[in-house]
């Protein structure tokens, strides 16, 4: 191999190596939230089950942090619907179109999205507007009379 070709290859290879040693770890660290997946506390309490009357839909709040003063965004609103005494449905407040905060209207018994006219029925099914699926439902369970939801059972931004 000629000296010139060898040097060219060395310069290119060396630069690529330096770039790789810096860039790759930085990139991996940057995307680590995706590699680590969803970690942390999975089941969060919503309140005593008896707070939610049968046949009604009511707003409730998930506290994402179990200790200390509530901080901005550690509290997240949801809607709880209790069709029968044995059945509880917890809806995400996030419209399934683009994530705007839906609001419950007890008069018409529908959820309304304030952005593009998405309307959902009491059971979360789509009635109107651009949403292409029903409301996200949290998996829930009752432990010692307390309603708990699995915060990982809906999409991470919901």
């Amino acid at each position: 191999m000629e000296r010139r070709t060898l040097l060219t290859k060395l310069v290119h290879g060396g630069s690529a190596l330096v770039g790789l040693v810096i860039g790759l770890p930085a990139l991996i660290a940057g995307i680590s939230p995706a590699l680590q997946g969803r970690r942390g506390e999975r089941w969060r309490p919503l309140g005593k089950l008896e707070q939610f009357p049968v046949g009604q839909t009511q707003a409730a709040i998930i506290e994402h942090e179990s200790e200390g003063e509530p901080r901005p965004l550690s509290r997240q609103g949801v809607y709880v619907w209790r069709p029968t005494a044995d059945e509880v449905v917890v809806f995400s407040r996030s419209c399934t179109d683009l994530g705007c905060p839906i609001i419950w209207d007890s008069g018409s018994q529908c959820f309304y999205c304030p952005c593009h006219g998405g309307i959902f029925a009491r059971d979360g099914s789509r009635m109107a507007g651009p949403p292409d699926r029903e409301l996200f439902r949290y998996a829930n369970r009752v432990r010692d009379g307390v309603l708990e939801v699995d915060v990982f059972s809906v999409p991470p931004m919901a």
Partner: protein
Amino acid sequence: MAGERMKAIVDWTLDRFAVKQIEKGLLDRRVAKGTWYHGDGAALFLLFKILLITGAFLALSYTPSLDGAYSSVRYITEDQTLGWFVRGLHYWSAGLMVLVLVFHLLRQILLGGYKSPREGTWLIGVLLFFAVIATSLLGYVLRWDERAIYGLRVALNLMYRVPLIGESLVLIVQGGPHIGEQTLPRIYAMHVIFVPLLLLALIGYHMYLVVMHGITGPTERSQPVSDADEQRRLYKADAMSEERGETFFPSTAAKSGAFAGVVFLVVVVLTLVLGPGYLYPEANLVKSSFPMEEWWWSWYSALAGLLPPWLATTFYVGFPIVLFLILAALPFLDRSPRRGLRNRPVAVVVVSVCVIVILSLGSLRARSPWMAFPHSEPPPVPDGVQLSPYAEQGRQLFAQFGCNSCHAIDGHGAPFGPDLAASGRVLSHAQFRKIILDPPEEIAMPPYEGRLTDEELNQIIDFLMHVQITRHR
């Protein structure tokens, strides 16, 4: 001699800092004569510089943390001496940058500015376009008010729809399983470090290429040019000619500066008159909120409102990708030798249609005819209508049972369902009864069967019978 000594110092400085070369190579160079609209690039460059400087000073006081972000923006806007002005310049420069950038891009399409040998300039420009659009969203997320958090949530919902990697994208942007502690520093780093560095590099390269390949000159705009060699010959002739060429400094610089100056004036006036972007309540996921996008997104928001559900994911994911591909491929698809506005009727039609569509969508968003939303106040009694006490009861029930969440009465209320005072047809008592209790499958109305007593139902219908003839008399 003092004078000679002075001149020696100046000469030394010019030589050692190689200023002469800049003067000779850049400022004194002959270029093809530009017209007023060639100043849009200079305007964009000025806006970018304003954004860098005001942004750097905003960063002095901004806190990229959950607890501190919103209050620091409040502090800058309300307490800091002239903080409102700096933030206002930043806000309006950002909005105007999007606007002028769209103008710049459409103008190149009109003139055929991407044609050889300027394909590279164009491709760098396309990257710049997407980087600026992205950072124009990131910037207002930093305000960390309700508009910010729901803007961010919209972006996350768009990403979530990307097949296979959607959830990963969301986690990467959020920095964790929820929007929280890790999110704001990421947005901040992107808006303040990553994107500006990228923009700086790309803008530098873009301008280097503009110096190398020039602007679309007068001769190019008037006669077909088949290839890069021919263009270079014609451009050189233009630049050297007395009437079709000029010296970059001060002739071109003055003209471009005029455009940039006007844009700058608009930024300052908007800042003084309207102030910086309005601060909504602090970001939260608990209170009910009416989030709106910033004005330069309103046309896109209207599109979202018009989408049929089956198209939503395809559109949200596909639109930016298709737009990028079309723009990137444009110089290779459009092989016609014709350049200049007058010789490109297809481009004129396409661009005009785009502009009209964007403006109409923007005005549609302002009206948002799809909007249905709960409202506790009953609608006012239409002019000239006398309600019996029985019908008045119905008017109260109309709000209590959320009828007014969708229906307006004589223009008052949500525009989603038919306006029941002006629907254009008169329904009988029995027809109302049927629709309210058991609405047809195809309309988005909840059934009231079992929710209303006969009395309540009759009162509501009585109210509707009273008002539905408002427009018929």
